[in-house]
């Protein structure tokens, strides 16, 4: 990944990071002694995370459906019917289900990250002021993020969205009855609005994460600048627009970046709330690959889809790492 790291800040970062007397050339032995402590972690990570991707690439060129007779075990390599070349990739790019999955993934990720970033910013601004019980409010606000994702998906589906006894319809029913109606409206949220239902549950889960990062950004504002703005009689809006927002920029970038990494890989919520349905209305890429693997048993096709996802991620990551690397060098230049 050296290509993605900006080369320039490295030396700056290093010198700011640990100012050492003039660097003398290290001998080979010394270099290896320095590398020693790093090696176990590095080798372990390479084996467990990189090798599978090489295998994924290999499998993506095979015609391999487990349901076809003769496909028994894998590592003996007597298991696939034929080489497929780029056939699987052709399928991936022409299959309408997969195209839908790509679209759903984009809609899901962009809306969840942006909405939860906005809500998180709003909550962070509110929590940045002192008010009675602020510490307690902050603690409570973290809770949605700490509930196990599968648990929150199940709670949203069954305790909140359920048309008959979910909290949402229950509350509507209560309000309607207050005004003398027999019964409130019965809305089946998950079947009627599948995508918004998933987005709402994920926004709820990720807003605290965004809020925490943005709150840290707000509270790291230099006080003297804010003081100066106040003395200059800048209005709250002006202070926010010209001082807070520029300062927050890197925190906003970081929260969008980290949020995208996690939301892009969403599997639990889709698996639990909609099972990708109705039809393929909420099937995102991770869930589509899962279906191809364990429902259709098309290993070659699933692997090709996996490779496409990895390439997509690398493109995103190349931009994203630039953002992180600027944060990273700034931190070490202090």
């Amino acid at each position: 990944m050296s290509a993605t790291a900006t080369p320039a800040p490295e030396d700056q970062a290093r010198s700011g990071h640990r100012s050492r007397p003039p660097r003398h050339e290290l001998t080979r032995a010394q270099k290896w002694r320095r590398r020693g402590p790093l090696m176990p972690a590095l080798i372990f990570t390479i084996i467990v995370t990189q090798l599978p991707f090489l295998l994924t690439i290999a499998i993506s060129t095979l015609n391999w459906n487990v349901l076809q007779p003769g496909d028994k075990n894998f590592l003996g390599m007597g298991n696939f019917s034929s080489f497929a070349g780029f056939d699987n990739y052709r399928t991936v790019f022409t299959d309408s289900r997969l195209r839908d999955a790509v679209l759903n993934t984009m809609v899901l990720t962009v809306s969840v990250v942006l909405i939860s970033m906005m809500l998180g910013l709003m909550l962070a601004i509110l929590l940045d002021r002192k008010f009675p019980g602020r510490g307690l409010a902050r603690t409570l606000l973290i809770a949605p993020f700490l509930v196990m994702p599968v648990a929150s998906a199940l709670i949203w589906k069954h305790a909140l969205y359920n048309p008959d006894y979910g909290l949402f319809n229950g509350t509507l029913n209560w309000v309607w009855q207050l005004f003398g109606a027999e019964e409130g409206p019965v809305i089946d949220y998950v079947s009627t609005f599948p995508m918004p239902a998933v987005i709402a549950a994920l926004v709820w889960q990720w807003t605290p994460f965004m809020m925490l990062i943005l709150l840290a950004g707000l509270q790291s504002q230099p006080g003297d600048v804010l003081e100066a703005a106040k003395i200059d009689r800048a209005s709250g809006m002006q202070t926010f627009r010209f001082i807070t927002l520029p300062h927050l920029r890197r925190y906003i970038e970081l929260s969008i970046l980290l949020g995208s990494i996690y939301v892009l890989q969403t599997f639990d919520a889709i698996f639990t709330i909609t099972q990708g349905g109705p039809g393929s209305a909420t099937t995102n890429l991770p869930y589509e690959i899962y279906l191809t693997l364990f429902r259709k048993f098309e290993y070659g096709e699933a692997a090709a889809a996996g490779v496409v996802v990895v390439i997509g991620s690398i493109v995103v990551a190349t931009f994203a790492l630039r953002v992180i690397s600027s944060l990273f060098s700034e931190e070490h230049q202090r």
Partner: protein
Amino acid sequence: MSTRTPDQSTGTRHPADPLDAHGADPGDVAQGIAPPPAQKRRRRRSSSGDGDRAGWRWATLAWVLTLLFVAPVFWMILTSFHQESDAATSPPSLFAPLSFDNYAAVFDRGASTFLINSAIASGVSTLLVLILAVPAAYALSIRPVEKWTDVMFFFLSTKFLPPIAALLPVYLIVKQIGGLDNIYTLVLLYTAMNMPIAVWMMQSFLAEIPPEILEAAQVDGAGFLRTVWSIVTPMASPGLAATALICFIFSWNEFMFAVNLTATVSATSPIFLVGFISSQGLFLAKLCAAATLVSLPVMIAGFAAQDKLVRGLSLGAVK
């Protein structure tokens, strides 16, 4: 920052931050109002400066939003103490009698096996991550290897690769070596999953150890192991705890590998939750009890270490 005692009111702000030092808003005096002490404190950071009533309005808004936001969590916990008949009513019954029956029922259905599996998978993998990541972070911050930033970005880049794309080969290899439904398969995968986060976090914590102390140790003739064990580890222990917490949370909550690679023997808590629905029909109150139960360890740990959480979640990039 890491050695400071957590203080909720100042959050992550540095103690020397001038914001904490400046006094009450001079506007209070200018307007000739004598605000009660509590309001005086509250107004200190009010950037809009449009009076106390506005301050209260903002506080009310903050609390209303907070309560709306945590309502689903409260609802989950409340329902978990209700009887099934009271749980599935519309309009919702807030004041139904409470009991621990659902929790007893959840344990009767064998929740403890799943909790133990989760504890092993998360605990052992967290331990392994720390054992591997601390020396690595040492080699990346204290006596950095050449091109240490490149190594850091390599670790990070593995985090960008979606695990779903590795699921098939992992599944095939694990199946081939007979590792399906084995908790130590999950341990290995979770260790790799959390390694980049741990390396980044520990690097940022170790970089804060003053070089003078390490130089002094070097002058005294301390070797690598001695330095790591007697100086680095104790000084970085708050960071170590934060890293452990984050790794534990991510492993505890992991679902995709768990659902595809385990079956009956080594399934973890999220699998228990999902199985709870399909095999028995829907029992909302018991589901809420199970969901509360499996979320409890992470919630307690997260509340206890909330100021560390920020830094961990942002890989140490935000303090």
